[in-house]
């Protein structure tokens, strides 16, 4: 009986992992197929799609654009989000619940809707004060900050909520001024939340398509947009190769991060 239950449990866990991992493994597998139109079984295996991806100027340019965008949006979003999370948890704000919901808002709105709304707003601002935001890099960064803030607020607030304010009081009692208390005690104690927030923010921004698609300027395509453009004309495993590189990169990023902070502690 107990044995059967263990078996069922393990089988269930295995099934869940399979469902989660299978698409990723399938993409990685596909990227080595030696034929333009994917069919099974493959005719053979090749690395030429990786070579092709490398040779596409749109992809390398898109990669650099995405990287810049994600880094800047993450730095801004994590700074603002950390400050917001600190205020939400520690200060007794009058409209705490409302502010929290507002900050989480972007997570609940579909990217296309958010992108359209922002586009319309940017055009309106353009009309009103003759200041161009549509199709500019600052405009796109501002939009991506909307993606990074909720993740940071969520994760930093979670890591802060578990910390007793007594350590901060002890620091103040020993002569530390408020800014010193924050820098020397609060910030290090919520480090894992901040790092996890930064990681998730980066991933969100880096692989965002819907929002970016509506706000990106000509010649500034990010990697996901470049991939979509490619897909309009050709369907070959090149995209699978690009996706594989992304999966490996993000996986590596998570593993490295996990070595410095215990991610599972914050995320769960």
């Amino acid at each position: 009986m107990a044995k059967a239950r263990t078996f069922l449990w393990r089988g269930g866990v295995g099934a869940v992992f399979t469902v989660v991992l299978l698409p990723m493994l399938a993409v990685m597998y596909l990227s080595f197929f030696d034929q333009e139109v994917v069919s099974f079984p493959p005719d053979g295996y090749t690395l030429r799609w990786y070579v092709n991806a490398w040779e596409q100027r749109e992809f390398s340019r898109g990669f650099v654009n995405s990287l810049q965008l994600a880094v800047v949006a993450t730095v801004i979003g994590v700074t603002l989000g950390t400050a917001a999370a600190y205020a939400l948890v520690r200060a007794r704000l009058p409209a705490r619940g409302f502010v929290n919901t507002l900050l989480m808002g972007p997570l609940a709105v579909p990217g296309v809707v958010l992108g359209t709304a922002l586009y319309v707003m940017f055009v309106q601002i353009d009309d009103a004060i003759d200041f161009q935001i549509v199709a500019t890099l600052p405009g796109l960064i501002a939009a991506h900050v909307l993606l990074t803030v909720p993740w940071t607020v969520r994760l930093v607030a979670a890591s802060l909520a578990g910390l007793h304010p007594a350590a901060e009081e002890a620091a103040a009692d020993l002569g530390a001024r408020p800014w010193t208390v924050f820098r020397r005690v609060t910030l290090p104690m919520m480090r894992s939340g901040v790092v996890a927030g930064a990681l998730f923010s980066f991933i969100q921004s880096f692989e965002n398509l819907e929002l970016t698609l509506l706000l990106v300027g000509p010649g500034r395509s990010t990697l996901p947009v470049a991939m979509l453009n490619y897909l309009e004309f050709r369907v070959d495993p090149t995209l699978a190769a690009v996706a594989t590189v992304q999966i490996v990169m993000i996986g590596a990023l998570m593993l490295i991060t996990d070595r410095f902070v215990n991610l599972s502690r914050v995320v769960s």
Partner: protein
Amino acid sequence: MTNLVIDGLRRTYGATVAVDRVDLEVAQGELVALLGPSGCGKTTTLRMVAGFVQPTAGRVLIGGTDVTQAPPYGRDTAMVFQGYALFPHMTVAENVGFGLEMRKIARPERETRITEALRLVRLDGYAERRISQLSGGQQQRVALARALVVNPGVFLLDEPLSNLDARLRAEVRVEIRALQQRLGLTTLFVTHDQEEALTMADRLVVMDRGRVRQIGSPEELYERPADIFVASFLGRCNILSGVLEAPGSFRAGGLLLPSAGERPRGPAALAVRPERIDIRPDGGCLPGRLTMVTYLGGMTEFHLETPAGPVLVTKPTPAQGDPLRALVAGDTVHLDWHNSFGRLLGIEPEGDLP
């Protein structure tokens, strides 16, 4: 010379009065314990001294300077917190050195003082350990060292022993007291444990519902409690209610009981400590029937039912052959005590405060 003066301190939260009209002076080198049940305002008082809570009214003076408006970092206090509140991301030495660093003390001197403080709490050799590698007792000593190392004008302790097991608690109690006396620290100590307060403090402040009930030495409070709250909170006490008919004649349960002290005639309470009562076969002032005899090793407790109400008597466990030894539940005995051990106090209805 650093003394602490608390003058008319009051703190309200909405309609709730947490602390009301607390006046207290702690002399240089004195250890005063704030004692009371939870919610009596003792911790709020301590936090107002440290600067974490702003008083609604009143003043706090440290070494003659009014610090009521000063932030925590602007006060010459150091506090040992209930949960220690150590910095988990720093080593033991970094924790202890934090206050020195904030006081801009140069590194060489800082290191000397850290080493010295760690030796003081018997943690030499632990400087580079992480906090998570220490036991509860060791963490407690780091918290002590961190506060002591800055040589504070006023040393504050917020139930520092409540997270330790009973044996360690008794040990650390003696250590803290010895350190405090050796360093001559002006100390305010918050506890709900009366034994802790009695053994450590020069003077006790018994608080209840935001007010000070009585201030005095442990002996004063135990032997001469001001009211039935203090009498029953500090140690165990039999409180017999009755009527004072004339000076010296207190009647409870229809019997005249030995009493001392001046009070207006009328309803009164008689406080008698359980160890002051004698048990006799006959001829005492109060007959009683034993309901339970509890053997506690060195002491034995006798629970009795009397016409004046239930009474507890504690005696050093009688030797074999002593007639007391033979007493069992159901036996009838007589109780008696010297006049001076029967302390007359007022009867206060619940909720009434002087």
